[in-house]
Every structure is written in C-alpha cells, then in structure tokens.
C-alpha cells in the first residue's frame, strides 16, 4: 500500500509539474509583449499555489501563505525600504482603495500598476485552483490544453512572439498530462486491479508516442503557409501598441528616393529613443519633385546655420494659430548626422560646442560639432504642437496671389508624362467637395478603402516607362507608406492643392514612462515612414496620413456646432480596417499583366476584402447556429431519424434505429445504466411515458438481437412503435 501511495503521490507531483509548465507558457510571452516585468515573482507565486494544493494544505493556511506572499511581492516591487518597517502599509492600502473606486467607475485605464499586479495575482490564484480542479477532481484537462494552444498560436501569428519552442513544450507537456489523466480516469471508472503493471503498460507507450510524434513533427518538412502572413495588416491596424510600419525598402533611413517600389524586409534595429510629451511623427526631410518614379529634391549648396537654442529657420506654421509648447528629447542609438524633429520645431537644445546646418530645400538639419559634421548623442527639441481649426481650414479654396508662381509651381509640380487618368481620378474623388480641406480628406480616405491593401512584401517595382503612382492607383493597389503618400501628393497636386512628401519616422513604440508627463518611445528602422503635408495659406503645413493603419496624431479642432460634414470626424484617422490577407502576386505584373490564376486570386481576395464584415458575420452566425443546433439536437434528431429509417424495409435497420432511439432517450434525460437490461430500461421508459410501446418495441428488438431475426411481418409494427416513441421524445 505504501509503495502504491508513494507512486501515487509521485504521479500527482508529475501532473502538477506538467501543468505548471503549461501555465508557464501563458506567462512567458508577457515579458516580450506587454509592460509586465518581474515575471519570476508570478512564477514563484504559481509554484507556491500549486505546491500548496499538491501538499493538500488546509485552505486557511494556504490562504494565509498566499496573501502574505502577494503582499510581500507588492511591497518588494512597488515600495522602498524594508518589508518589516510596515510604513508601506498605509500607502498600499490607500492605493488599493483608490483603485477600487476607479473600478467602480469603470475607469479601467487609470488603474495603477500596483493594483493591476494584485489583480494578476488573483487571476493566477484562480488559475491554480482551476488546475487543481481539473487534475484531481475532473481528471480532464483538454480545455486548458486547447486554450493554451490557441493562446500561443494566436500570439505567434499576430505578435512578434516566436512560439516555435513554446508549441513543442506545450504539446509535450499537454499530451503527457492528458494521457496520464485518461489512464487514471479509466482506472477510476473500471476499478482495475494491479495498477502498477497496468500503469507501466500505459505510460511507456504514452511516452514513446509523445516522443515519436513530437520529434517527427519537429523533423518533418513543413509546408509553406497557404496565405501570406496576416501580421502586417493587423499590426498596421494597431499602431498604438503593435509594431510600427516597416519603414522603407532599404535598411534604415536612406536618402535616395528617386526610384521607389519593390518589397523590403523589416528591421528591428533601434535608431533612437525619444522622451516625448505627446505622440508625434519625426520629420527628417521633405521632397517636392516627383519624377514619375520617385522623389528628388532640387540640388542646392545653400546651408542655413544656427546654434542650439536659436530659432530654427523652418516656419511650417503661420503665426497666430492655436498651439501648445512642448519638448521632446532624443537619445540617438545610431550615428546619423541629421536631426529628427517634429512639425512646428522652434529650437534645438544640445551641447555648447554643437551647431546646426539646414538645407533650405529639403529642410533637412545636419548636426555639427566644432564645424565638422558629427552625430549627436542626445538633444531635445522645443516645438509648437498645432491644433488646427477645421473651420479655418475649410475656408481655403484657392491660393492667394501673395504666393508667387514659384511657390505654386514648386508644390504642384507633376511630371508631364503622368497619365491623365490620375488627374481624372483625383477630380472624381474630390468632385463633391469645394474646399481644400475636404478635398484632401476625401483623397486621404480614398486610400482607406477602394481595395487598397497594406503590404510590405508583394510590392511591385514599376517597370520601364510605368508611372509609380499610376501603377499603384489603378493596378496593384498594394503597397506601403511610400505608395500611399506619393500617390496622395500626386493626386492633390493634380487638383491644384500644394503639397509635399515628407520622410521620417513614426512616433515609435511605447516602452515606459519617462519623467513628468513624458513617455519613452523606441524608434527602430521599422518605424521609418513617409507621409504628406498640405499647405493651407492661413495655417501653414498640415500633415495628412493616407497609409492604412497609421495615424499622424494631428489635432483637428472641429466646431462644436456641426457644419454639415460631420462624417469627417477626426477619429476616422484610426479607423483603418484590418484587411484580409492578400495572396501572392507575381512581381512582374506591372509590365506583363496578370496570369489567369493570379487574376482569379485577385478577384477572390478583393471579394474577401470587400465583403469581410459580411463573411465574418455569416461565419459567426453559422457557428452560433451550428452550436445551437448541436445543443438542441434532441429537438430535430428524431425528424432526421424518421426521415432516415422510415422508408427502410430491412431488418438490419432496426438495430440502428433502436440505438438511435436509445441515444435520443438518453438526451432527454432517460439514462440507461450500462448494466440495465433492455427490458428493465423499457419498463422504466414506459413508466415515464405511461405507455407500453417501449416494452413491445424492445421485445421485438430482443428477438432481432438475441434470436438473430425478426418474425416475418412484424417490421411494419416495429416501425410504427419506433416512430411513436421517437416522436414522444420531442413532445
């Protein structure tokens, strides 16, 4: 007996350990994907919880230990000083009280880290209890395993988390737990003897099976995914927390934009870290000559010099509009000699020995140290954050004469060989609108739909003679920021709105809180970006963002009294739709035209893209109906059975029909114990229905089953009895 007990407790320990591994898989990605730190504290808590439950600690004692651990960890994580000074107690308590208040007011985003940690502990506590329940009471853990698997695969697909090893670990641990639990469930049910011998006969094949299947799965060649990675769509949809855009086709920030197009790979290398009070894009330079293939800037040797603290000679905003003074600080990681700055820059603060030079055409600022080009380690920029009055913007319908031809020509320049249909399209899109602002917004939102897809990989490089914009607008409709921004500028210019193409970086990814109101953002090569600035004579340059899934964080102030075009709410900026995955398309399609299959593919993908809401809704509805139908199958199964068996004239079918009837009776709650004979059960059923049908039907079935055949001529009566009974089950 003692040997068996020891064996048992070892097995239980093993089960707990494997479940711990499964739970661990839930915590692993947190560090990488969220702001959660100190994962080990939670792991230790899980370990303690499972250990307590394994040791069968009395509930009160376990409760006490866990509470002490939680409080100690929170003190350790969030408070200075020794645990035993107890001076942390009142702030902790007041924090919890405040958070309770927030919870009652549903101000979820305001909750403090301390309270979130507490909630997380409680969640883990519940999980450890559930694990115990599944392992010991239910002896079933498939649900948990399945959820773990789903969690990991979803993370792997939609985030940067690489789950290759996690899946192997989960499969191994999960199968081991499920296999062992199945065995013990069987033992329980059948009350077998000689458990030791049996368990050896079960566990060894189980181990071999897991080992073989995992190593086979690991070693076997894996098919390429049928659909391209959906991640870019999802991530571009959610710039707030997800990955930024993949930048440009070159690695990092380049200067030559004279030939745009072609796919590129992302690069996670950090360019700089910024401490910013507000989210804003980082400009590097602007370009204003579109060649039909890319962007160039007018060559100039002119350089405007200025010192740190001087006013920067860039005047993007007209004086007098609403602005707010802000400061951002940049900590460079890569040795670029140019300066990234936000729109509305006023001054740059840097070391005494530094000075700056600016190219007046591209507005690119170079940093110098003792008059030689040098990279800055750190600098901060003071800038004015504009809040554009939409009413003002809507006033503009043309450029006043005070802006000379030179200005107009510069910012409405287009190559003469630009296909006319680009202009026709722009006019068509903007036809309903009078003023520049609404026209610009119309073009901007045109890219948010109309079959355009965000993609970094399957992007065509225009062939000889093809126009970069024309091809994107009318043909590929698939590309990244350069495609979108260039196309928008070209369309704007074709309807006479002065605009320019801006290069730089997005705000990057939020990393942690900085000092004061500031937050730290990390900007990588993936965050390299391009967008559009439009000139409004009474306001200055206004940035717009045509690229799907991005937001330029521009503050448009709409009148409180709606002025007739309420559809242009600023929130639209963020409402880029997630887009169905687009199939591979040949890269040379620009010059040769699509082949048959890719055309069908394109149609299919367009269909999915345009109808995705519908499809999703239909799918959800179908699943819901299916589930409902399954749950309520006792309502309709009889009809199916009657349809299926009524016309049969063969004795063989009595068995299937009778078994179906038993299943149906079981579903409505008349359960037959496995040791109950059909006669006893029939009597029980008849008592329930107050009839004799089941006994009569059963006696016929007995004849068929135990005698081997039915008497001739009874089949019709059998059918009648059977039909009566199965109809009763739905009554």
């Amino acid at each position: 007996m003692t040997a068996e007990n020891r064996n048992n407790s070892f097995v239980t320990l093993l089960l707990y350990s494997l479940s711990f591994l499964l739970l661990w898989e839930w915590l692993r990605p947190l560090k990488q994907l969220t702001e959660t730190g100190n994962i080990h504290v939670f792991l230790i808590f899980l370990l303690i919880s499972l250990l307590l439950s394994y040791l069968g600690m009395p509930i009160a004692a376990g409760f006490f230990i866990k509470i002490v651990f939680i409080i100690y960890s929170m003190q350790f994580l969030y408070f200075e000083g020794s645990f035993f000074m107890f001076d942390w107690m009142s702030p902790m308590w007041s924090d919890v009280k405040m958070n309770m208040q927030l919870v009652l007011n549903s101000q979820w985003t305001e909750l403090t880290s301390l309270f979130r940690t507490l909630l997380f502990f409680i969640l883990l506590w519940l999980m450890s209890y559930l694990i115990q329940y599944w392992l010991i009471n239910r002896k079933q853990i498939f649900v948990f395993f399945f959820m773990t698997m789903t969690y990991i695969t979803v993370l792997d697909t939609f985030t940067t988390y690489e789950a290759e090893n996690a899946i192997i670990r989960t499969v191994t641990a999960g199968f081991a737990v499920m296999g062992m639990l199945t065995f013990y469930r069987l033992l329980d049910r059948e009350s077998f003897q000689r458990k030791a011998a049996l368990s050896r006969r079960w566990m060894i094949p189980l181990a071999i099976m897991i080992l073989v299947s995992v190593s086979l799965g690991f070693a076997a060649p894996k098919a390429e995914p049928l659909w391209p990675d959906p991640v870019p769509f999802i991530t571009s949809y959610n710039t707030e927390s997800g990955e930024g855009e993949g930048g440009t086709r070159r690695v990092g920030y380049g200067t030559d934009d004279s030939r745009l197009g072609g796919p590129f790979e992302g690069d996670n290398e950090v360019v700089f870290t910024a401490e910013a009070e507000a989210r804003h894009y980082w400009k590097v330079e602007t370009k204003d000559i579109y060649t039909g293939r890319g962007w160039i800037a007018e060559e100039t040797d002119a350089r405007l010099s200025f010192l740190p603290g001087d006013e920067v000679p860039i005047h993007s905003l007209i004086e007098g509009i609403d602005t707010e003074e802000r400061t951002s600080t940049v900590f460079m990681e890569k040795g670029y000699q140019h300066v990234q700055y936000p729109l509305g820059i006023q001054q740059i603060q840097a070391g005494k020995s530094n000075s700056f030079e600016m190219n007046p055409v591209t507005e690119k600022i170079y940093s110098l140290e003792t008059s030689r080009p040098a990279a800055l380690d750190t600098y901060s920029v003071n800038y004015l954050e504009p809040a554009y009055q939409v009413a003002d913007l809507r006033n503009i319908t043309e450029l006043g004469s005070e802006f000379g031809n030179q200005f107009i020509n510069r910012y409405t320049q287009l190559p003469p060989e630009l296909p006319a249909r680009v202009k026709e399209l722009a006019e068509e899109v903007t036809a309903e609108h009078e003023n520049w602002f609404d026209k610009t917004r119309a073009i901007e939102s045109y890219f948010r739909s109309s079959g355009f897809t965000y993609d970094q990989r399957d992007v065509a490089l225009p062939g000889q003679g093809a126009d970069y914009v024309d091809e994107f607008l009318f043909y590929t409709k698939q590309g990244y920021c350069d495609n979108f921004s260039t196309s928008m500028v070209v369309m704007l210019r074709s309807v006479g709105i002065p605009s320019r193409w801006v290069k730089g970086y997005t705000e990057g990814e939020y990393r942690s809180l900085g000092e004061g109101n500031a937050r730290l953002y990390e900007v990588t090569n993936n965050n390299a970006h391009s967008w559009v600035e439009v000139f409004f004579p009474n306001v200055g340059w206004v940035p717009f963002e045509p690229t799907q899934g991005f937001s330029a964080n521009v503050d448009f102030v709409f009148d409180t009294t709606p002025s007739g075009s309420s559809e242009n709410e600023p929130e639209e900026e963020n409402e880029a739709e997630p887009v169905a995955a687009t199939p591979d398309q040949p890269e040379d399609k620009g010059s040769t035209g699509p082949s048959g299959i890719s055309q069908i593919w394109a149609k299919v993908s367009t269909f999915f893209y345009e109808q995705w809401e519908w499809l999703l809704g239909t799918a959800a509805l179908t699943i819901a109906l299916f589930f409902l139908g399954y749950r309520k199958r006792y309502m309709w199964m009889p009809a199916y059975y009657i349809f299926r068996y009524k016309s049969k004239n063969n004795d063989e079918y009595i068995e299937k029909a009778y078994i179906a009837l038993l299943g149906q009776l079981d579903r409505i709650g008349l359960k037959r114990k496995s040791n109950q004979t059909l006669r006893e059960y029939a009597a029980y059923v008849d008592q329930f229905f107050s009839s004799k049908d089941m006994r009569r039907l059963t006696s016929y079935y007995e004849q068929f089953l135990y005698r081997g055949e039915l008497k001739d001529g009874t089949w019709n009566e059998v059918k009648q009895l059977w039909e009566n009974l199965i109809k009763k089950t739905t009554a």
Partner: protein
Amino acid sequence: MREQMNPTIETILENIERVMTGKRDVAKLSLIALLAEGHVLLEDVPGVGKTMMVRALAKSVSASFKRIQFTPDLLPSDVTGVSIYNPKELEFQFRPGPIMGNIILADEINRTSPKTQSALLEGMEESSVTVDGVTYRLEKPFFVMATQNPIEYEGTYPLPEAQLDRFLLKMKMGYPGTNEEIEVLSRAQKVPPIDDLEPVINLEELRTLQKEMKEVFVDDSIKKYIVEISTRTRTHDSVYLGASPRGSIGLMKAAQAYAYIHGRDYVIPDEVQYLAPFVLSHRIILKSEARFDGVTAEDVVNQVIARVPVPIQKAVK
C-alpha cells in the same frame, strides 16, 4: 406484456404449489436444474419443506424418488448399493442402493465423511456408479437435490470446492412468510396433499423437454456477456478463485432452461442476470480478508453484474 409460460411447466409448477405454498421461485429453479440436467444444492436449516418439494417434483414428472439421509457413519455402499452372495444361486447379486433412482434427495450431505460424499458425487458427474469393479449406468433423468446445513454448524464436513462445482445451482429455501406459514398449518390438519398429487408428464416426456431445451438459441452477444461475467469474477478484488468455465457452461444452460420454461426460444440478458448468483456464487472462493469484512460470494456476483455492460447491439465478429 407478460410472456406465456410453457404450459407443461406451468402445470407442474401448479402441482408443486399445491403442496408448497409461496415457493414458486425455488420450484422454478429446481425445474430449471432438472431440465438442464444439473443438480441443486439447497443450503438451509431442517424443516422448511425441502423433502416435500422434491417429492412433489418427482411425483409430477412420474420419476422414482429416493432419499438418502447422510450421517457421519454412512458408508459408500449404503449409497451405491452392495453385492450380496446368494447361496441359492451360488453367486453375488447386486442390490441397488438409493442412488439408483431418478430424483434423489441427499439430505445433509455435509454431515457424512468425504468418502461417502464422493460416492454420490461420482454418480452425479458420471451418471454411473462402480460397485465391486462393475459399473452400473444410472437411469436418466438423474437429478440430485442435496441439502446442507450452513457450514458454520457443528459436526459438518464442508464439501470440497471441486465437488461444489458439480452443482448447477445453489439456493436457499428460506422460511415461509407469515401468511404462508398459516396456510402450511391449515394444510397440515388435513391429509397430506402429496398423496393425491397426479403426475403431469411421464419420464419419456421429461426427456423430450430436456432435449427441446437444448434447442434454445444463444446469441454470440449473450455468450460473450456470460463469459465476461465469469471472467470478471476471476479478477475481482475480493476473490481468491473465480468461476470456472464449467460455471460459464452452467450459466448458459440454466439460462436456456429458464428461457424454455418461459416459452421463449432464445436467451435474453435478463435471464443471465437473474441466474448468475445462483449458478456462480458457490463456485467462487473468497479471500479470507474479504470474508472477514463480511463480503459474500453473492455480493461479488451482484457487483460483477452491475459492472458488465449488457449487450445491446450485435456482437462485432
């Protein structure tokens, strides 16, 4: 819907009931054993009407009835018969013992020595007895109803396991209920009714019944069910030695007989379930710790029946 009993059997049962009140089940089981050509072990205290029932049974089927009272000093030859020298004929003449009958009541079989017991048991198994080197065949039908005192009583020689296995059924008679006992008293005031009992069938007809009984169909699924029950008694926790294959055969034959007297030509699981305790429990030897815990062989069989699933679909070949 009640099944129609075999009319002949129904008459025999009614006949027996005229002398025995409220013991229809016991009478039915005895008939099952008679039809299945098995023997019955009745474990009960004296005076509950065992003899009366066997005599009624014997009379109903026109069989010769013999009774052997086993005592500690009974010799094998007292059972089988003995050869006696006849001075007139100048040769040994065989004088048959009480075993040379159709229906034998072996009273208190566990009171006699194993040697004498084995003389009876040889007859039961081989349908023949050997006296002085000569083998005499016993006339068929040959049906032994042995009674034994509960083993705990003093002065008994418990039957060895191998010999218990030879009995098809073991059952208890039990005391009659209050009303039935009053009825017994009333009958005792009159002439014993056993004397005017009329035979229902003759021996030839009985043999026909026995032959017909063998034709009752047993489906493979039922056979599998029977074997499953026997097998599970062997692996049960409390069991030292489980039911033998002879037990499985016995269970099948008894079930056939049961189906037959109910006028059905095939066996259903209900019969197996009903008969299993009577057929199997005396063939099971419990572990001593289980006996100390108060577990009985009937408990074990009932537990096994509760666990083996009833076949409700054709056996997959």
